[in-house]
């Protein structure tokens, strides 16, 4: 099939600034449609869930929902689970998602699943393998697919290129999009001592559709991507750097633990909007938000 992701990207809606939908903050989240433009859910929480869990989604229908997976295991040498893909496609159709995403990693192999994102070796063989599978899943779902750069606490032996090269090769050859996690870039830059801005310059920014942003924690030896702290200044700076260089359709705040008062999450969303406003006003104040505000006025 002759696709062209860059053209497809230009037709995707601009969703604005959103929040990861989590049970611990679900009630508060649903009350703040005026300040949250869209929600992202963990696909696997719904693709294998029963009807009551799916009903949760119906209560959130005033939000655009984006599915974000953690178990596709795009880089695994095990077969892709067809049932998983079928359930995912059904879910994507149910919520009319304009795109979906998962991680550039593997979560298991040899029929053992770790439920954790493990870095791939940055090798030509891994590129070819991921490209084939990414094309297949994108074609099967019929909806643009984004791959997210992960935080890695080790470099898997067998690499032949840099991470930025690896990401670029995969995205270009698979002709898919990118979910750029700026916190992951920053965390990796501290753990592996590289310049995060240079890294950003080396990846195909024109393929970035969505951005993830979150907080991290510094330990004595490592920086950990915890999604359990406030966004730090250098991570906001990276966001600003990216937004000045490419059109982005959505920015999502991820918070998975140590939930603060909801107001501080709303403040972080507002900070993101303020960074976006001068360079991408449509991202800061997307049409869907304006429509909602008019409707409730």
């Amino acid at each position, binding site marked *: 099939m002759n696709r062209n992701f860059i053209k497809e990207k230009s037709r995707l809606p601009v969703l604005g600034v959103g929040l990861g939908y989590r049970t611990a903050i679900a009630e508060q989240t649903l009350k703040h449609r005026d300040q949250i433009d869209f929600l992202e859910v963990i696909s696997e929480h719904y693709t294998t869930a*029963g009807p009551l869990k799916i009903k949760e989604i119906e209560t959130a229908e005033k939000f655009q929902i984006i599915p974000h997976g953690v178990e596709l295991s795009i880089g695994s040498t095990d077969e892709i689970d067809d049932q998983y893909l079928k359930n995912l496609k059904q879910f994507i159709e149910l919520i009319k998602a304009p795109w979906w995403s998962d991680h550039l990693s593997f979560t298991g*192999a*040899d029929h053992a699943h*770790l*439920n*954790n994102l493990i870095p791939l070796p940055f090798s030509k063989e*891994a590129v070819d393998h991921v490209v084939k599978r990414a094309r297949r899943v994108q074609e099967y779902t019929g909806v643009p697919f984004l791959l997210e750069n992960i935080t890695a606490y080790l470099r*898997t032996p*067998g690499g032949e290129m840099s991470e930025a090269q690896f990401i670029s090769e995969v995205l270009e050859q698979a002709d898919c999009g990118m979910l750029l996690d700026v916190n992951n870039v920053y965390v990796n830059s501290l753990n592996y001592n590289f310049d995060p801005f240079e890294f950003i310059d080396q990846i195909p920014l024109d393929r970035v559709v969505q951005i993830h942003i979150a907080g991290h924690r510094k330990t004595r030896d490592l920086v950990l991507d915890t999604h359990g702290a406030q966004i730090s200044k250098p991570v906001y700076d990276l966001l600003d750097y990216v937004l000045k260089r490419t059109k982005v359709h959505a920015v999502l705040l991820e918070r998975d633990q140590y939930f603060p008062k909801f107001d501080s999450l709303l403040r972080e969303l507002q900070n993101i909007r303020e960074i976006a406003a001068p360079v991408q006003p449509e991202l800061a104040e997307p049409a869907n938000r304006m429509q909602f505000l008019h409707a409730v006025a």
Partner: protein
Amino acid sequence: MSTMNLAEIQKTMILLLTDSDLIKDENHHNLTEDQKQFLSQIPHDRFEVYAYGTLGKRFDFSLMIFDLTHKAFTRQEWYELLEQYWKERRNNPAQPIDALAEFPQFLSSSGRDPVWSEFAEYELALGNVARYRDEIEVTNDPRPENLATSRTRVVINPSLRLMSFNYAVIDIAEKLSHRRKPRINRLATPIYLAIYQDPTTRNTRVQQVGSLTARLIEAAQSPRTSIGGLYRLVKVHQKKLDKLIIEQSLAQVIAQLQERGVISQFIYSEQ
């Protein structure tokens, strides 16, 4: 220079991440030369970060799936149980609820009070019933008559799981959900629970049934059993009762099970 291909690299990574003992110097003789070389390229403390992260994620899943069972243990005990559980199971399904399917038996074999194994079975069943997602077809056809000879079949709600317990799991659940200590007494006779999705609301329902009703439900789950077959089953257990009384009692049980959504349909057949 390593000659490992991607599949071998991944297999080695998983092996090293799931069996931390292999990383220790004294156990390197269990690794191939390629694996030893592979291991030498990674700072060993980084494996711990992943092992810790993996267990942390699995710990979180387990708290969701065994939301009440875990409250019977200290956090440390629960963590150690899970650590041991996964150490013994390298190959597991991707879905956490499937990966934890053997956890109740594991609790039993780990020397814990048998009540917790049964209670974990109960909670796992609640989770599995809740995720049943196919349509549950319900018809409100009239109930058949002349039960003794009826070839009509009852269709049991397809989400239903019939289970027997030696402990009062519903009471234990009630106490644990309020963070109160449950009273643990083995029952004189087992109780039978029908756990199923309400066809209308899709809420999970738990219905205690008597032993004979449990046998009837079990028999009716077989597509070969007609209502006449159910009648004969009751007759075997209630030899002294006459036909009319058995028919009346069976009709009453069928009516109750239909009202509660345990029976979802009748499939009529020519007499």
